[in-house]
């Protein structure tokens, strides 16, 4: 795959790495929007009470 001259391989790696980090952040917010954590809190709470 060709990469343009204005992006050295190091800069391109840096760009792609940051893009993946941001995509991970978006994915985290997507996953946590599903309310599974309410059940998790309940389980943790129940365990703590015992």
């Amino acid at each position: 795959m060709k990469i343009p001259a204005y992006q050295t391989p190091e800069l391109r790696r840096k760009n792609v790495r940051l893009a993946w980090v941001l995509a991970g952040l978006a994915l985290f917010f997507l996953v946590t929007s599903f309310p599974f954590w309410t059940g998790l809190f309940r389980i943790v709470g129940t365990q703590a009470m015992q």
Partner: protein
Amino acid sequence: MSTTTMTHDEAHHHEAPKGWRRWLFSTNHKDIGTLYLLFALTMLFLGGASAMLIRLELFQPGIQLLDPDLYNNLVTNHALIMIFGAVMPAAAGLANWMIPMMIGAPDMALPRMNNLSFWVLPAAATMLILSFVVPFFPGGGTQINTGWTLYPPLSVQVGMSMDFLIFAIHLLGISSVLASINIIVTLLNMRAPGMTLLKMPMFCWTWLVTAFLLILVVPVLAGGVTMLLFDRHFGTSFFDAAGGGDPVLFQHLFWFFGHPEVYILLLPSIGVLSHVIPAFSRKPLFGYNSMVGAMLAVATIGMVVWAHHQYTVGMSLGAVTYFMIGTILISIPVGLMIFNFIATMWRGSMTFETPMLFAVGIVLMFTFGGLSGVMLAVVPADMQYHDSMFVVAHFHYVLMPGAVFGLFAGVFYWLPKWTGHMYDEKLGKIFFWINVISFNITFFPQHFLGLAGMPRRIVDYNVMFTEFNVISSVGAMIFGLSHLLFLYIVIKTIRGGKKAESRAWEGAKGLEWELDSPPAFHTWTVAPQIK
């Protein structure tokens, strides 16, 4: 993955490709910016047409043209088209065009992803339009009569058009998140040497904050509508109380996205103003650092006050008190921004070309919209105003001046740079005055309608509301048609006109004004040094 580096000539000195391939396969930030802007303009007319139909129906009491479900389907589509189809892509178009030129970068950091971000949009728009059209066909099911908020249980009961809409929202979200990732990477990694974050042009700062907001909140909407889809088709009960779910959960998820969305629409226009006002006041922006701080404060507080849209749903006193105080607190950083704009104009050598007219209009009218927002933030008052036409008036005063007029200011400000021609200033000013006056005729009376008790999202109304509705509808027709003049001005400028200089405006500052008008296909092949 193996990579090879293109030679300098290959990468930068070739001419623009010809024909449809130039646009379909484009990785050039200017071409993709143009595509975004053309797409937004198309959707503006589509969304505008639906708004004019709504106002035609409300011209008189009784049912004139639209049955109640079709009316609410138009309300739903108008909102979604304007927000996701017109304002956000227009802001992304400005970002694509201007950010690389402003920070001295040759292009966006991830050019192929940039292409994908745009080309997902027409597919999303098709799905969105299909969601409107499908109910007209045999077996198409009921219309989407939920409004853009898509609250269950109604949204679970709507016909298959809702599935088209959910898919459209997913595609729009993917496009927004990809574009945001690209913008953040470009701004953090591609700035010219010497351009520290606190030397970055304010438009870039506003987009940095906007892009982070998008990445944080759009996935939550995607999660919400995915659960809606599951409730509709796969037997889950996320929002069904009978199955142990909670319909209010959807409201929380929706507004966790929906309230920051206001700032997503608003901040790029604040960025435009931060360039237009100094340029036409011939003074540097007052309080650059405080503007950055105010923006960060708006974004941070804006993320945690979403439930002021849900006061009437029955939250605890502690919760509504928290959301009320948090919401009112936002007026402090927003007020600081407005103060900085006024302080920039103070004793400036001001001239009032079209972008500046829009900027001054924004400062006045957006402040007014913000004040009615403070009224709505107060819990006992909101109990009266909730779901009334007052809310419609409020958010149009926030979003039209705050977002759309800001984009108009940006287009008029940078059109000479993009096209190489000055636009017709006289026509520009005529457009401004018709647009602003008709906007106020349309929406100002709606405050009174709401205070007098006229609910929104209802096709019919009591005869006591007739006079203000007639005024509002007449204003809306003029307002809608005035955008044809905007289209004419843009086409006329593209086709010719007085040649624009590199620095099209005497007071304009920034790297983008050091480039030719129009700029070459590839710019900043050698990064500028910032002192």
